[in-house]
């Protein structure tokens, strides 16, 4: 699932730019879905939604449309999101390391006295 110069999905762009755009697109989708799902009357989500949409669609800003059909753009975009998912999951053992560290702390340390109870007694 890795990509190289040979299978670059953005014409006339380099891999550094593609990697950055995949990250931005991935987080844009995540944030956009989160804002839509958690919509409530106490939120003012319009500015963040617009920005997350912009991030989500950011790869389209650098696509060279000259040789691409609508269907092809759709496929490119979906592959971008799939690459984002694979790269995110590939990096997720970092979170497992953090979880393991916290698990060690929870297993070894004892609970300290509740500071709130202490305060109430005083």
């Amino acid at each position, binding site marked *: *699932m890795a990509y190289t110069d040979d299978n670059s999905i953005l014409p006339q762009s380099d891999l550094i730019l593609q990697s950055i755009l995949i990250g931005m697109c991935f987080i844009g989708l995540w944030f956009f*879905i989160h804002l839509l799902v958690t919509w409530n009357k106490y939120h003012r989500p319009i500015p963040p939604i617009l*920005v997350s949409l912009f991030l989500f669609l950011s790869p389209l800003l650098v696509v060279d449309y000259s040789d691409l059909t609508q269907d092809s753009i759709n496929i490119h975009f979906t592959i971008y999101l*799939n690459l*984002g998912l694979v790269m995110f999951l590939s*990096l997720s053992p970092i979170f497992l390391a953090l979880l393991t560290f916290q*698990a060690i702390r929870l297993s070894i340390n004892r609970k300290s006295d509740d500071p709130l109870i202490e305060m109430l007694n005083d």
Partner: protein
Amino acid sequence: MLWIHQTIIGWALILAAISLNRMGPAFKRSKFSSPILLLGLSIILLIQGPGDNTGSCLEEFCTLETYLEFQNFIISSSIWISLALLGIMLIIYGSEWYSKSNPIALIFAWLLIFYSWWTVINIDFYHEILEQPNYLFNYFFFALGILISLFILIGVVRWTEINTPRDPIIDEMDEREKRIVTEIIRRNIRGDD
């Protein structure tokens, strides 16, 4: 619909389920989050075969080989993430922090976490990444893209909050009100009558 579309629909449902689960008070989470999460996971794990993608997909990405590699990676990742989450929940349950210590739960939890690490270590995709340093280069810039996005989004959220009209400042509690609040907290924490 190609399998790459199916994966993104499943992932979107998982994200929606996680966000729904964070809505509302801690004791009353959304009842829709679990079914949506299961639906999203099912859609991702049961992705259809590559099929005939002639003319509708890029040759380099929609091959049987890529599909199998992707499916293998997604299934392995789902296994270790599930085991790790179950392990950490058991550790929270078995540790002294929130209830009485339960050594059996702790031992079982650590077995799950070790097995989770073992699964990660044996995923072929990581061996492939480590053999080709230029992949790591891509990952660095992917992480940079995530950081840039988060920086922008946090800035926008802060800007929105700063520009939200504020409620008028209320007066500080007097001594009687402070005593009432202290008593309520005391009774709730200790379970006094």
